[in-house]
């Protein structure tokens, strides 16, 4: 039995290494993806191009606009005469936001009833979020500032700080600078591992079916389980090498801190790879061509990105949708890898995910072993 597994493995390794072009793609693609994500993905948007309509043109309006600009979120491009012109500038894509200041801003501020309108281009969710938060923060701190000065004038000696009844301080754990890359790397590792392991396995099995070699294999003494194991091992190796590459680049190039135990992480990655390979076998049993397998892998990839908690927090999802996410191995591994890489926790705090992943691997393998028939039917 071991000899037959070894025979399949040898064959698979030779085939993998001989197809240089595919191998290059398999190895280069994750690296490329990491660099793209590492440099292009920034959740926080700043330097938003802004136009200003200033109907007051007084000392207060200027200092307010200055405050907006100093926040770093808004770059004032130019001034226009009316709100319509400002909206037109956004329509034309000249600006992403506009600030409209009504006449007599100075007087309104003195009376304590000043208002400024901020118009934001809503076509990009990230910009809206950042501009919205920034505008509110700037306006709040600006008014606190004003209030303090006003008070100081009427009551010399009183300290401005006393005005603020509550001073909220936020401390972000594990990722104090809120760098996107730190948050992304565990997710990228999980996405790439799952996608590659699933598709490599599915393709290598479907390829035999497409070429007709499966018929020849089935009449040899090689049993389906032996064939499965022999085919999986080389794919495990390829996926593992890729995982180490991405992790290495993340830690040494992008300076993502690795807080937890590396060995624990590697064992978990292996478990995850094996579950993903099992998923690949399942895909292969229902597809008869590589094109079909490709579509199915894609059909798994997209829900994986959306439902696993990689992009959207799972806590907010309706029960049924969350259950769909439970069927994807990435969901568990994401929690495990964020736990180990970012938070540095040990097995004690992630054991439930580990057990889930283990059960998952067993179920998927059981299913695929029973559907992988010795017969052609």
């Amino acid at each position, binding site marked *: 039995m071991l000899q037959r597994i070894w025979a399949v493995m040898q064959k698979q390794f030779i085939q993998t290494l001989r197809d240089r072009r595919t191998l290059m793609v398999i190895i280069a693609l994750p690296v490329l993806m990491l660099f793209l994500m590492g440099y292009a993905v920034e959740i926080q948007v700043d330097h938003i191009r802004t136009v200003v309509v200033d109907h007051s043109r007084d000392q207060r309006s200027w200092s307010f606009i200055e405050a907006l600009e100093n926040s770093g979120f808004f770059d004032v491009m130019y001034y226009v005469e009316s709100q319509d012109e400002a909206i037109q500038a956004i329509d034309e894509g000249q600006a992403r936001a506009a600030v409209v200041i009504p006449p007599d801003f100075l007087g309104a501020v003195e009376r304590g009833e000043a208002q400024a309108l901020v118009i934001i281009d809503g076509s990009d969710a990230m910009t809206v979020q950042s501009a919205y938060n920034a505008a509110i923060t700037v306006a709040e701190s600006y008014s606190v500032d004003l209030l303090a000065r006003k008070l100081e004038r009427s009551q010399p000696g009183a300290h401005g700080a006393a005005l603020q009844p509550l001073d909220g301080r936020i401390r972000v754990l594990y990722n104090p600078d809120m760098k996107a890359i730190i948050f992304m790397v565990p997710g990228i590792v999980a996405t790439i591992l799952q996608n590659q392991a699933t598709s490599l396995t599915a393709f290598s099995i479907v390829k035999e079916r497409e*070429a007709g070699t499966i018929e020849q294999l089935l*009449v040899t003494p090689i049993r389906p389980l032996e064939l499965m194991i022999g085919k999986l091992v080389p794919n495990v190796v390829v996926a593992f090498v890729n995982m180490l590459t991405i992790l290495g680049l993340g830690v040494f190039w992008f300076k993502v801190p690795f807080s937890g135990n590396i060995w624990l992480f590697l064992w978990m990655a292996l478990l995850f790879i094996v579950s993903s390979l099992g998923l690949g076998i399942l895909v292969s049993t229902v597809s008869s061509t590589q094109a079909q397998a490709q579509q199915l892998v894609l059909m798994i990839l997209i829900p994986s990105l959306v439902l696993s908690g990689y992009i959207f927090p799972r806590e907010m999802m309706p029960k049924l949708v969350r259950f769909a996410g439970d069927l994807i191995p990435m969901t568990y591994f994401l929690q495990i890898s964020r736990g180990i890489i970012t938070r540095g926790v040990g097995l004690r705090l992630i054991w439930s995910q580990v057990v889930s992943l283990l059960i998952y691997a067993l179920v998927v393998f059981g299913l695929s072993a029973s559907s992988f028939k010795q017969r052609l039917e």
Partner: protein
Amino acid sequence: MGDEMIVAGDLHKAFYSHQRGGRVEAVAGISLRVAKGETYGLIGPDGAGKSTMMRLLNGLYVPDAGRASVGGYDIVRQFQAIHRMSGYMAQRFALYGDLTVAENLCFFGRAYGLSAAECAERVPTLLRFAGLERFPQRLAARLSGGMKKKLALASMLIHNPEVVFLDEPTLGVDPVSRREFWDLLSTLRAERGLTIFICTPYMDEAERCHAVGLIYEGRLIAQGRPQDIRALLPGQMVELHTKDLRAAEIVTGVEGVLEVQTYGRLLRVFVEDAERRIGGLVGAIEASGIEVSGARVAEPGIEEAFVYLIRRQRQEGMHRP
């Protein structure tokens, strides 16, 4: 049962067909016996059920009804034992194009449980046998069609099987390679006493078998030695060369004509006592103003017998309610 390698009794296998909206029997009650050391040819047109029969005997399909055994092993319960003692060459060329000739041979050897040393010993012999000794390092995908078939044959032989199943092994192969392939089979037969079960649509290959079965729409319509099959044809055969297809109609009406078959411009007419009738046939055609460029008495082959038998089968089918 000692002398028999393959025994099949009333095998049935149906598949669901979308075209006909129901189950269609690909193999509809086939019984046959193949003695050890014999070469049995299953002859029939595409879609007759040849490949299904092959796959049934190799345990790749489970029959709906009937029983069969290979080397005394049951095809349903003991198919793994059959796999160890037999070789099977599927219809589609099924070796690894991205492995070299030697790697392909060795992979199959290892799959059949040979040690690396045994492989190393047998590979050169097989390469020589298949005439591939100059290309052990060539990728299988870069071999010519004929060489691919020879490599496939060689890799099925690496574990010294007692019986081989060949599903249309010479399909799409040039005539020279086809002859070479059959010469290899003859060598195997003579040297190893190998039992060969072969499917082919080529009638001339049937002549090289000890026994043939004519398969049509899932049934064996005739079975026996090639000469026995030919003997099923009525009368003797006259070959007529004409340029006009109407000649066939004219001849059909001539007295004493039992069977007319057209092969392009060649007309094969079956009559009692060919020597006496040949003049009358030529005369009847020429009387209609059609030139006969050649006429001779010839020995009929399996092909003529097959065409005759299928035609008779169809007529019987039409008379059936």
